[in-house]
């Protein structure tokens, strides 16, 4: 099984390293000292694992042969042992042979590689479609045709990252809301980004695809076993690159259907809230929470931004000036800069709360309370 393969791998690959690892390969330690690729839970991940192991063993065998000859010469043909140098410096037969043999080995490796690649690329006959949109630094999942859409972002608190609280088990691998998909179902992912390039990677599925602004990439998976699987962003996307994990919750089909109908009700309820009028205090409380989640990574929790990179909001002309200009900036973003259009990312309630918070926090004190309905009217009036 894969653990045994792992051990073999460690023994061959890491004579030095395994010294540290061996002796205490306790069950729970095994994952910590992992040395090999996971076999994964999809047919694609299994096929890739097999190719990886074939390539690995071919390399090991060639390595033993080549380095064997070299170490033999280093031992036997030393001047200190009285070796006298021969004077040959070419041998056409040998050179032809060691050109042809690697070529044949490569051809052998290409056969499973080609068939697996065809499989990776076959997105036809998918049973459901999920659109994944990457933002700095979170993922948005949209169940196409189901009107369900939500954001998934890091749930690990800053206190753990900056070492003022102990780190939990799934440090940096936990999110506000995981992607949920049914087991044994061919799911097609349509992947894009709104700002810079990201890459959506779940090792256990062997799915990794770049999320590129202005383009939609396709890939797919069909998971064999229910469970929680964790992944991460694999393309450098700015300071939050290490802080936008992926969690996928794979459910039995009935459980998934139950989850989906519940989710639809929840989405409708949030839409209902748009009509409510909130007090300034309610908006400020909601706003602080939403601001820290969606805005603080650039503009900072203290509203001062990062000089030269991200502008501060404390006492800024936008946050203390005309409300409609402020709304425009948050809803539509600022073209050609890192300021995203949050209109499509956040609910009207969150948008209203954030704008209200920005206009009153850090001594901005404008006293303005922007209501969700104002945001909705602004959006519709465009």
């Amino acid at each position, binding site marked *: 099984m894969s653990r045994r393969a792992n051990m073999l791998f460690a023994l061959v690959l*890491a004579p*030095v*390293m395994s010294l540290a690892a061996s002796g205490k390969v306790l069950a729970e330690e095994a994952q*910590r000292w*992992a*040395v*090999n690729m996971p076999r994964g839970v999809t047919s694609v991940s299994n096929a*890739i694992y097999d*190719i*990886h192991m074939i390539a690995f063993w071919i390399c090991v065998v060639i*390595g033993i042969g*080549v380095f064997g000859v070299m170490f033999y*010469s*280093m031992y036997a*043909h030393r*001047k200190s042992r009285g*070796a006298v*140098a021969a004077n040959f*410096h*070419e041998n056409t037969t*040998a*050179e032809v042979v*060691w*050109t042809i043999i690697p070529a044949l080995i*490569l051809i052998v*490796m*290409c056969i499973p*590689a080609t068939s697996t*690649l065809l499989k990776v690329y076959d997105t036809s006959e998918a049973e459901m479609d999920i659109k994944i949109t990457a933002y700095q630094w979170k993922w948005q999942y949209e169940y196409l045709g189901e009107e369900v859409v939500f954001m998934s972002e890091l749930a690990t608190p800053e206190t753990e990252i900056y*070492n003022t609280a102990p*780190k939990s088990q799934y*440090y*940096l691998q936990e999110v506000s809301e995981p992607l949920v998909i049914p087991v044994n179902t061919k799911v097609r992912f349509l992947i894009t980004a709104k*700002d*810079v*390039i990201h890459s959506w990677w779940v*090792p256990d599925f*062997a799915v990794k*695809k*770049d999320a*590129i*602004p*202005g*383009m939609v*990439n396709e890939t797919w998976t069909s998971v064999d076993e229910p469970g929680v699987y964790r*992944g*991460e962003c*694999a393309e*450098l996307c*700015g*300071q*939050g*690159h*290490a*802080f936008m994990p992926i969690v996928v919750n794979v459910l039995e089909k009935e459980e998934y259907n139950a989850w989906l109908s519940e989710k639809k009700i929840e989405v409708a309820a949030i839409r209902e809230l748009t009509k409510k009028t909130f007090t300034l205090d309610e908006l400020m409380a909601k706003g602080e929470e939403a601001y820290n989640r969606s805005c603080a990574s650039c503009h900072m929790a203290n509203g001062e931004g*990062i*000089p*030269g990179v991200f502008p501060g909001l404390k006492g800024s002309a936008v946050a203390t000036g005309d409300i409609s200009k402020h709304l425009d900036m948050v809803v539509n973003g600022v*073209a*050609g800069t890192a300021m995203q259009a949050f209109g499509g990312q956040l609910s009207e309630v969150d948008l209203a709360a954030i704008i209200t918070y920005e206009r009153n926090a850090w001594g901005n004190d404008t006293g303005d309370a922007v209501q969700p309905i104002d945001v909705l009217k602004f959006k519709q009036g465009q």
Partner: protein
Amino acid sequence: MAHGPAKGIGRWLFTTNHKDIGTLYLWFSFAMFLLGGSFAMIIRAELFEPGMQIIRPEFFNQMTTMHGLVMVFGAIMPAFVGLANWMIPMMIGAPDMALPRMNNLSFWILPFAFALMASTLFMEGGAPNFGWTFYAPLSTTYAPDTVNFFIFAVHIMGASSIMGSINIIATVLNMRAPGMTLMKMPMFVWTWLITAFLLIAVMPVLAGAVTMMLMDINFGTSFFDAAGGGDPVLFQHVFWFFGHPEVYIIILPAFGVISHIIPTFSRKPLFGYSSMVYATASIAFLSFIVWAHHMFLVGMPIGGELYFMYATMLIAIPTAAKVFNWISTMFRGSMTFETPMLFAIAFVILFTIGGFTGVMVAIAPADVQYHDSYFVVAHFHYVMVAGAVFSGTAAVYYWLPKWCGRMYDESMAKVQFWVSFVGFNVTFFPQHFLGLAGMPRRYADYALQFSDWNMVSSIGAFMYGASQLLFLFIVIRTIRSGTPVSEPKVWEGAEGLEWTLATPVPYHTFSTPPEVK
């Protein structure tokens, strides 16, 4: 000769002597190596444990970017240009480089390029933070304003490289001693001749890429912005059309160095000289047609993926031929293991391991798992550090006694070798494991299951870093007070015109050309 070097600082500022310029290049590249290395030490210190301890993620990205840029453009490339300046005229029996004034200029613009780039560390917005591959739009729309300094720095480096290459081509094609036909040229000269053509072909492409960035950032064009009709993937195509030949620009001269050291200490001529030349040329040719294997996940059509996978795998054939040739050179030789030979053997072993992982990442479906993970970081450090840096170190130990007429301390150098070798492997071997277990590269912080190997890797990195300070100490000590050597052939088994000159090498050499039979 009638006159020696000028006195004072003017000797170095206005020199047109290939040996002086070679020395300048080598010291400059070593200074950059220590600078880039110090960035690596900061990176590894931060990654010693999970959590952010020393620096912020934003600064971490500046460190990874500057580490890559400084090492590739500041340390490795100038080091081999320095070796070329020193050795090519001596190897082909020429009195100097063909274009000595341009030689001076091509060196002296480099410190300005790097001063420009490093100064951004102290500016508002910080240094480049988008990775050494500077993918758009992270490096355009989303970059700090200091990106403009980076763009001009790259332009200057490119100009320097192009001038250096023109000089090498002109020298090699016009100034060889009578009787030295192309197929009698030493391997180091051959590899540099081919490298120089690669440089001339691709540096303008890099200049084009950064100019398009400059236009996108400052003049409202949309080359890499989909919203304006451009394409972010175009950037990657242009970049890697430069970037893939670039890695061979780095490694081919290293092959050349190794092809001198192994025969010397095996006391046996290089096996398969002509196949070495053809292999080098085929590697150079193939380097132009495989670039998109760096982009297997951007959503290329499957035909493109298959083509780039097959073409990339072809590179394994000439590369393997080179390794077999080196081993056949050792086979039935009469070997001794002085420090240059130790580094050369380590090069063969570790570069081959990097080659193995290179074939693995070339397999497009498997690359789904390897891509942008620490497996790739391990792969290219095996070829860049154990390849280029080890061979550069070997070259310095090999030629330093010839240059300055003093022998380094052999036992101290062996200690330096073993600390480097162990430190290097402890740093980078576990990174294979990290990548396979799912840790992406360029991460400022990581999940808990990656803690152990990261700590091991950091310990190795500090060890490797310390070994470079020892190297600096050994070199300075040799120059100031090493045991004098005076025989022209410093090494018993060395062959070639450079070993016919007096030791230490006079300031002017080959004012009358030698005859090559």
